[in-house]
């Protein structure tokens, strides 16, 4: 099984098996819910990893796109009478368009300047969502109409387990395939050295923008899925701390590793669930665990483990 993880379709196969087999061990619907949360977050993290891990650009405002997707499926059916699925697509379109427009000037920036610009963008989206309470319900959030497809209503945590699981498989498949395309190679080139990439004729700005738009669409889709699953949205999903959570999933799992993003998401989603037993000590422990894991696993869990396995074999 571990050898399979070295091959592109091996990862996909193992993931499919895990998704299919996991429910056998679930004692209650609560587990379905937590697992679905992991799949959704992993999906968003995989998208962000294309931007961060492959193209080497940081975004501290990615929850902004997540929020746009989430509120698209909330506002569309409630206020505009648009069906959920169309609203979801409109959300993706809006996120892509916004990423395209904002990305053009932002992605010229480097390092901490790029960090603060993306952060500013994310904070602005969250502020608009919090303030325009006529549309969004303000800080309290709003409820989301259930997804209905040809008369079939998607509800129940096991249904959403399979929907989000399928979504994650599709997202993983696309991300893995991207690696081997000219675009994927261009991402890697500009990750290693922007100037070298430019010298070899790669249109650096175009590919950065492409990575940004792809990551935005991933986040938007994840946001829509989560909103439809929960039947509820609130501004925290677009907030700064959620952006950081996504970045932490990517970095903790391993920059550039698709599998890493899934592992990172699993750790970061399950950790608070486990820590709730510590009640008021939850934040204290969460902070401590983030610090300690970044110190001792700075390359990320998956790259570290794979190095460990390789080392043992040699």
């Amino acid at each position, binding site marked *: 099984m571990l050898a399979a993880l070295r091959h592109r379709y091996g990862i996909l196969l193992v993931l499919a098996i895990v998704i299919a087999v996991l429910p056998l061990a679930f004692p209650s619907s609560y587990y379905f819910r937590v697992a679905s949360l992991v799949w959704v977050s992993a999906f968003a993290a995989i998208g962000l990893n294309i931007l961060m891990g492959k193209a080497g650009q940081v975004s501290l405002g990615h929850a902004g796109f997540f929020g746009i997707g989430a509120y698209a499926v909330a506002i569309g059916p409630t206020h505009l009478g648009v069906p959920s699925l169309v609203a979801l697509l409109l959300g993706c379109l809006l996120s892509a368009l916004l990423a395209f427009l904002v990305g053009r000037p*932002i992605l010229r920036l480097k390092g901490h300047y790029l960090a603060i610009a993306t952060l500013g963008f994310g904070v602005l989206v969250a502020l608009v969502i919090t*303030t325009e309470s006529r549309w969004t319900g303000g800080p309290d959030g709003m409820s989301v109409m259930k997804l209905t497809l040809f008369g079939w209503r998607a509800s129940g945590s096991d249904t959403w387990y399979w929907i989000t699981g399928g979504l994650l498989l599709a997202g993983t498949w696309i991300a893995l395939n991207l690696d081997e395309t000219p675009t994927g190679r261009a991402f890697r080139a500009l990750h290693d050295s922007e100037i070298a990439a430019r010298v070899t004729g790669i249109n650096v700005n175009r590919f950065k923008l492409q990575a940004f738009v792809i990551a935005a669409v991933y986040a938007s889709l994840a946001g829509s899925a989560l909103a439809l699953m929960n039947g509820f949205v609130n501004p925290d999903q677009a907030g*700064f701390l959620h952006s950081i959570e996504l970045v932490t999933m990517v970095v*903790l799992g391993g920059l550039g590793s698709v599998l890493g993003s899934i592992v990172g998401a699993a750790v970061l989603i399950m950790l608070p669930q486990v820590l709730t037993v510590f009640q008021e000590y939850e*934040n204290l422990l*969460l*902070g401590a*665990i983030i610090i300690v894991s970044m110190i001792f696993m700075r390359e990320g869990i998956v790259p570290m483990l794979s190095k460990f396995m390789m080392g043992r074999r040699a």
Partner: protein
Amino acid sequence: MPEFFQFLVSGLTIGAVYALVALGFTLVYNASDVVNFAQGEFVMLGGMVTVFVHAAGVPLPLAALVAVIVSVVLGLSLYWLAIAPARGASAVSLIIITIGASILLRGAAQIVFDKQFHKLPAFSGDTPVQMLGAAVQPQSFWVIGGTAVMVLLLYVFLERTLLGKAVLATSANRFAARLVGINTTTIMALAFGGSAAIGGVAGILITPITLTSYDVGTLLALKGFAAAMLGGMGNPLGAVAGGLLLGLLEAFGAGYISSTYKDAFAFIVILAVLFAAPQGLFGRRTIERV
């Protein structure tokens, strides 16, 4: 016109706090290249510790001193326990570590203190002073004056003392600083302790006006970061100018345009500035070496 002056004073007051947060940011960034998102938590700590020590019957100046000491101790611990062991980690990893630290500090504050809003008495009464038709809280003078004193002290420290020059040398070139015998690790710890002290003082000064609670740090850190960027990252005077500018923008924006979007102005401006001048207002252009 009185309206204008009113906005000016409130802008400078809140801007002074942003300036202090940005100054702390810059000090740490220059010495260690770390963008410290936990900077806002020291402002929270300065306010909260003073409130609770004062409530326990300790006179205000002494309570403030305790708060600064607590901030410095935690700033040093942040460096020794979280930043120093992560030496060589990437910039994003370090950002995540400092955010982890800010979550930790916030979590600790909600246990040690509580989740309520708290107020400190103003240092010299609540009777507003009439100036040019505007009513100015006496505490505003404390905030602006206190900030000026902090900036001056930092300037004297950096320019007139041997230790300060070692900090500057470390900022300029860490490797060369080590070659001439400067213990750069100590300098970095000093920068963390110093910036924690600056943050703590900011929290003590502003709490009588804005109140404080365990979770005020995040937004302050974001705005402090924005202010530091606005001035050009790594430039202490730029940080102060950026902070004051941000405060003024917020006050005038809230007064003349929209008060519900008060918090948005900082980020709209930072985006606009970065679009036009990618190195910040007072930053120097850098050239990438291949």
